[in-house]
């Protein structure tokens, strides 16, 4: 075990970034023209980095597996983006955003990075506005804000329920501009399948052209991964179908340490699974918990009657309902943080009180809100003695104005009208805080390999606050990496263009081709999809999901290994070309699932190693008597960064000790 150097600059917390920026080595414009940068992934973090590096004069090659950069999953973020602008004059500041993020992350993130994130947050908003992002505004034309979970100020900027989409379109358009200027070469429908390390430095990638199936070598002075998170290891998640870990995973296999893989965020309000065919889960915005009340039936016979369909949720009397969040957490009620709300729902369902055909759902009820809003609307319209029908009608209008879009989406998917019957919701995997370990420069343990956005182990510690993912992705891409990459590249100005005929490139290409050939040659009987489902739903969600214990994790590891071996023996990947030189989406999927198996094992190892509960990682052995998370600051205030030692070998742990000089470690309580 070694200790990792995070390269955090010395000095006062608030001065570090400013000082570092003004003293770091630079690359002169005439040299930038001769330096190539590969950027893999063109979501918020990748596209913003590609655009900015292109503007600076570097020669950029950008890669995405979609047909267009505009399809990256950043697009699906609904709620908003945080920034310490203090436009609302409600006491927000860089320090407060820093503090909220550290605390929200359950004290498992790096102070200096988080502070830098808070510092640049305001610039992001300015940049996006200038690009034409249509953020919500007041009548007077100024930007407006809303509030999100875990904070006491309004600092979230938003564009209806499509903030991620609008920010991505902003980054995509900046990228498009650089493409049109010839500064960025865009390779869409290309998937990175290996990293090429030459002389200890990341110098290129092997990418598969998804249209033709051909493998191509691409060389550059350095490589940036902005390839997102790995939530799809659970098969069912709110991630897009194509979201995968492959680029990050091959980097890990080539020497980049993987940090905190066990930190996964589980979002409490998603539309529950309805059947075996289910392919993904859809998020319902956190904002719904402002007005929705979460409950399950109090009595088991009501649960049975509901499942049998002999009773409807609205038939249950008030006293027969268990509003468990309000009961257990009277101080925060339905607005407890994500991890707490998710676990509480799981406990109810574990005890058999879950609703819906699968028993894996709880109710989110708006009846009380409709009545409350209806009454106040009736009074304000001069009808203090309005009847129930009028009150309901008026209340529905208010709720519709606030959440109309979400209610519509719910009805589209489930076919049920949430104005009339409570929504059914269940937690689902949403975001992964873990990722490739990076230092203050966002450089991984392989020199010349950088990671941005959700792909790195990030600034969110063990739990991310709402509206912070967009902030981090854009901070990394627009304002951090373009500076810090200079630290590496300034030493590379004498390095000529990287040629791709070196033995390292040949070895990497052969490695990928070998893997493809091997997969296609299995010619078994079982579809990739069913392996992915079994890995994700039956193993990972079951044993490494919302709550974990040592026994289950150990079992999970053997199950993963067995399933992985079975996969390589029995999977069937349809193909007509035995080397995969063709358009073949099944092969793409198979390659991704093969990597998920290996990652899954690492997650389990990490979860087993972290003998505490913190944020998105909950170990049943480390809970208070009431079932709340119990951190162990004494032994675990560190980042666990794992080194790959072989598919069948144990990974090696390296630690980065976390030092907190500016905040005091406290226990979170929501009672």
């Amino acid at each position, binding site marked *: 075990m070694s200790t990792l150097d995070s390269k955090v600059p010395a000095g006062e917390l608030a001065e570090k970034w400013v000082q570092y920026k003004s003293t770091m080595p630079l690359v002169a414009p005439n040299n930038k023209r001769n330096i190539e940068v590969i950027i893999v992934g063109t979501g918020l973090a990748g596209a913003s980095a590609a655009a900015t590096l292109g503007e600076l004069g570097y020669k950029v090659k950008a890669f995405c597996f979609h047909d267009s950069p505009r399809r990256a999953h950043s697009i*699906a973020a609904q709620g908003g983006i945080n920034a310490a602008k203090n436009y609302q004059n409600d006491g927000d500041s860089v320090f407060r955003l820093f503090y909220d993020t550290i605390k929200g992350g359950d004290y498992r993130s790096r102070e200096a990075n988080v502070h830098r994130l808070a510092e640049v947050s305001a610039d992001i908003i300015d940049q996006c506005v200038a690009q*034409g992002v249509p953020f919500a505004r007041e009548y007077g034309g100024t930007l407006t804000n809303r509030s999100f979970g875990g904070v006491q100020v309004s600092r979230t900027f938003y564009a209806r329920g499509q903030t991620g*989409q609008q920010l991505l379109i902003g980054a*995509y358009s900046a990228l498009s501009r650089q493409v049109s200027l010839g500064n960025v070469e865009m390779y*869409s429908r290309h998937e990175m399948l290996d990293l090429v390390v030459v002389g200890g430095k990341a110098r290129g990638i092997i990418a598969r052209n998804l249209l033709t199936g051909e493998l191509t070598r691409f060389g550059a002075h350095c490589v940036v991964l902005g390839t997102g998170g790995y939530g799809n290891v659970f098969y069912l998640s709110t991630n897009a179908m194509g979201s995968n870990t492959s680029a990050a995973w091959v980097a890990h296999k080539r020497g980049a340490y993987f940090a905190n893989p066990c930190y996964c965020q589980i979002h409490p309000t998603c539309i529950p699974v309805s059947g075996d065919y289910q392919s993904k889960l859809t998020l319902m915005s956190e904002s719904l918990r402002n007005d929705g009340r979460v409950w399950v039936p109090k009595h088991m016979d009501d649960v049975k009657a509901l499942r049998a369909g002999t009773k409807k949720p609205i038939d249950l009397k008030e006293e027969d309902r268990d509003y468990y969040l309000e009961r257990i957490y009277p101080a925060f009620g339905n607005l407890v943080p994500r991890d707490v709300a998710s676990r509480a729902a799981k406990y109810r369902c574990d005890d058999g009180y879950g609703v819906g055909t699968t028993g894996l759902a709880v109710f989110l009820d708006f009846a009380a809100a409709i009545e409350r809003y209806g009454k106040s609307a009736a009074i304000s319209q001069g009808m203090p003695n309005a009847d129930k029908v009028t009150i309901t009608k008026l209340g529905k209008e208010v709720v519709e104005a606030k959440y109309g879009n979400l209610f519509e989406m719910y009805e589209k998917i489930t076919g049920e009208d949430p104005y009339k019957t409570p929504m059914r919701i269940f937690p689902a995997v949403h975001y992964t805080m873990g990722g490739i370990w990076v230092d203050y420069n966002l450089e991984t343990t392989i020199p010349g390999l950088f990671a941005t956005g959700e792909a790195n182990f990030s600034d969110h510690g063990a739990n991310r606050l709402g509206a912070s993912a967009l902030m981090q992705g854009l901070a990394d891409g627009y304002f951090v990496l373009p500076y810090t990459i200079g630290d590496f590249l300034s030493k590379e100005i004498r390095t000529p263009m990287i040629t791709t005929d070196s033995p390292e490139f040949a070895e990497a290409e052969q490695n990928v081709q070998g893997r493809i050939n091997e997969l296609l040659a299995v010619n078994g009987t079982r579809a990739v999809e069913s392996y992915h489902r079994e890995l994700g739903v039956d193993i990972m969600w079951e044993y490494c999901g919302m709550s974990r214990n040592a026994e289950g994790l150990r079992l999970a590891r053997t199950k993963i290994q067995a399933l992985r071996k079975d996969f390589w023996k029995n999977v069937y990947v349809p193909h007509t070309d035995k080397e995969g030189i063709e*358009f073949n989406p099944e092969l793409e999927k198979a390659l991704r699932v093969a990597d998920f198996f290996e990652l899954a094992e690492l997650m389990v190892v990490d979860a087993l190693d972290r003998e505490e509960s913190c944020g998105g990682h909950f170990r049943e052995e480390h809970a208070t008597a009431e079932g709340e998370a119990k951190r162990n600051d004494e032994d675990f205030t560190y980042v666990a960064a794992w080194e790959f030692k072989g598919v069948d070998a144990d990974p090696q742990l390296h630690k980065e000790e976390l030092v907190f000089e500016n905040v005091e470690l406290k226990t979170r309580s929501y009672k």
Partner: protein
Amino acid sequence: MAHGEIKLNLHIWRQKGVNDKNAGIKTYKNVNVDTHMSFLEMLDVLNTKLIEEKHPDGPVSFEHDCREGICGSCSLVINGRPHGPMQGTTACQLHMRHFKDGQDVYIEPYKATAFPVISDLVTDRAALDRIINAGGYVSVNTGNAPDGNAVLVPQDISDEAMNAAACIGCGACVAACPNASAMLFTSAKVSHLALLPQGQAEATKRVKKMVATMDREGFGNCSNIGACEAECPKEISISNIARMNREYFSAVVGKD
């Protein structure tokens, strides 16, 4: 809600590669479908069956990603309508309860020469990216931006820009248009940026370049049929097309 089972006859366009001479509709009869499935999940289940049976046709290729109606990947023409029968709904959010037992369902790729078919239901929509590359941006380098509140934008203008910016780039407008015109897509971007003060500086240049690229890519001419608006999953209005026409005239006639 109770699950229902229905049987559908799926008539699916099968094509291997751009120049497949044998491309055409193939029929899969009596496919069992749970009414709770989404349209794409129905195809997933069909595909798993085709794979595990080692069916000579192989699985049906179709594009999809987020499956929540925002990424714009899915691009199916269902019974002649892009994204199927429900208004303001992408194919991924279309659920099978809207279909009847025994119904014939035609599933075809987008039809437009500017969108060549790659495989089965997958088309190449890169032409839309090239339209954006031609000028669908504000030329502002990172770090050059003034304070977000330095330029006030009236709420209704901002809302109108947002209506246009909601475009997910799925190309359903082109697929729906009997002329395969890309005017709704292009005009949504032109409108989004022309409405906002931030996009004003290069508005004339932008519209000229984007329209020229659109024409060059081989899209048809708009004849104001309005099918684009009717099929757009984000319900973007053709008043954007009128706005783009205006912008274009003033750009061409206005000073050089």
